[in-house]
């Protein structure tokens, strides 16, 4: 992105806040990975390492009243919506203080009050649901927008097709994105699809699409802003392909030997935090000392979170039985 464009289009505070969240995401997920290696996490760990700019960028571009249906590597979106590191860690440790009270694990957190839908493992299942939230906004005439995503892998599922198509036919206020990190677990793109870019899929629905540098938080933010504005003003849905790279294994147990070293080396130089720091420096918004300050702050926040999570109680067995049915629709 052209620095002068960014200077004009993004407020200094907004950019710095995004940088904060990039760092908090990184620090939190690194802590989770460390806990995982110590065997202290319950279940699997899927991180957004190297891809943090996507969730941070789009979640920053939304209004508070908008709804996010995050992908499984969108930790930044949760943080921006006010999920504390403590709550997140409690979730990973299966504690009662986690957003799902131990019912579900890892990034499967949702909270209606904070406008975040709970992720469903079955990839792309969340897309028709997100489109339905946008339908509710349209029916009620609200000027709210939904932001929802899947991975390159998820874009091969039928629910992706049905969601994209329905959103386009009804011109619903939703932005659908694909986080294209080159792999679905071990499966490279060429075994998933015969098109050069996932964004080509949007053509099947008459939906405008755009390729965005997913490692550049400013680019993500601006592209998201524009797509959100289209949705909000009734121009219908947009599809965004965020190009990025999965820098860890599929989950933390996977050494990802199937990924060529050179690919990782190449993408390492495009690290979203590095990029953001370069930008901030160029713009004269901050430098070394500033970054150091952020490091200290996020470390403190994460450590406070660890403490909170570890201190938190586990749920009691009989809580299993609670909540299968809603007693009232107001939750």
């Amino acid at each position, binding site marked *: 992105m052209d620095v002068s464009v960014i200077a004009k289009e993004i407020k200094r505070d907004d950019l710095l806040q995004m940088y904060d969240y990039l760092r908090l995401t990184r620090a939190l997920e690194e802590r989770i990975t460390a806990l995982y290696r110590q065997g202290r996490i319950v279940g699997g760990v899927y991180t957004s390492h190297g891809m943090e700019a996507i969730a941070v960028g789009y979640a920053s571009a939304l209004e508070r009243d908008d*709804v996010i249906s995050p992908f499984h590597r969108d930790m930044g979106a949760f943080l921006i919506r006010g999920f504390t590191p403590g709550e997140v860690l409690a979730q990973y440790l299966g504690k009662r203080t986690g*957003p*799902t009270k131990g*019912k*579900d694990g890892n990034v*499967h*957190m*949702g*909270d*209606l009050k904070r406008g975040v*839908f*709970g992720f*469903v493992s*079955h990839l792309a*299942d*969340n*897309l*028709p*649901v*997100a*489109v*339905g*939230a*946008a*339908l*509710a*906004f*349209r*029916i*009620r005439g609200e000027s709210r927008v939904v932001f929802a995503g899947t991975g390159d892998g998820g874009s091969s599922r*039928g*629910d992706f*097709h*049905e*969601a994209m*198509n*329905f959103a386009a*036919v*009804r011109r619903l206020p939703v932005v659908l994105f694909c986080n294209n990190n080159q792999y679905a677990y071990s499966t490279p793109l060429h075994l998933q699809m015969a098109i050069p870019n996932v964004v080509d899929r949007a053509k099947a629905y008459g939906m405008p699409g755009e390729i965005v540098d997913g490692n550049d938080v400013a680019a993500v933010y601006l592209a998201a802003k524009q797509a959100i504005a289209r949705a909000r003003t009734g121009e219908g849905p947009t599809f965004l392909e965020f190009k990025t790279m999965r820098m860890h294994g599929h989950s933390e147990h996977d050494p990802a030997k199937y990924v060529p070293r050179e690919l990782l080396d190449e993408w390492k130089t495009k690290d979203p935090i590095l990029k953001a720091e370069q930008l901030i420096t160029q713009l004269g918004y901050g430098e070394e000392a500033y970054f150091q300050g952020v490091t200290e702050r996020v470390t403190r926040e994460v450590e406070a979170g660890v403490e909170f999570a570890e201190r938190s109680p586990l749920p009691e067995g009989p809580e299993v039985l609670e*909540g*299968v*049915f*809603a*007693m*009232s*629709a*107001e*939750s």
Partner: protein
Amino acid sequence: MKTVDHTTEEVSYLEAISQALDEEMTRDERVFLMGEDIGTYGGAFKITEGFLQKYGEWRVLDTPLSESGFVGAATGAAIMGLRPVVEMQFADFISCAFDQITEVAAKNHYRWGAAVPMVIRAPFGGGVHGGPFHSECPEGWFFHSPGLKLVAPSTPYDAKGLLKAAIRDPNPVIYFEHKFLYRRIKSALPQQDFIVPLGKADVKRAGSDISIITYGAMVHLALEAAQTLAQEGIDLEVVDLRTLMPLDKETIYSSVRKTSKVILLHEDNKTGGIGAEIAALLAEDCFDSLDGPVVRIAPPDTPVPFSTPLEEFFLPKTSDVIATARKLAAY
């Protein structure tokens, strides 16, 4: 509940469903409809005839041919506070939305506390020469999926009252309406607003010798058989489950404790059907009250065949009930 003011003209089962939808849409503007051909065409069975004109295209949505997509969208709209009622053109096509129903809608409240007040209308059942794909009884699959409520009325009164209750319920409810009954049965209905609460079975005929527990179109078979058997001195009690999930164990058990003999009758395939569960409950909870084997009458484990003599062989018949009751009475 049944202090009924029979002042309306006789309405068919089908009209009762229409009325319930119409009244609930008028009563609550959050209620809206989605499905294939329900708008301009008024639905494959004409249940929503005139609704598009009355409520407009954002409350009566003709959808693309995408069961998974529009059930998912209904889920999202429900989470955001609307009250979608989705129509399957035939219950058989619910298999296409199976994943969205069982994995997303059914588990949503349990996982992260967001209620899904959605109704899926599923015209089901045979006797209409529909063959393997237009005659299915899919309730058995969903009976085994925690988080769903299931309803299957046998009369216009129950059809109307249960649909209204389903729409007002904060959970995903699958409403199985029997195609064979649509235009075959009629009755007068109360003029004032009424519901039939979910979870309550109804003794459609009190009797002392044998309990026959059933639902849907089979209720009429049971009542017919009861008439014949009465002349032979065999007094059948006909329990209409009405709600399949949650089961009204109280009514079932008290009937069985009175009669000590049980026939379970349904149109869904025998193996793994709802009759199996009731037999298991009785074997566990009413073992001492049983005075004879618990007998199931249900179609064999095959798809629903097309040709008339095959379908006649396949479906339970009044004569089956009579023969079984005689044997059981003599046990």
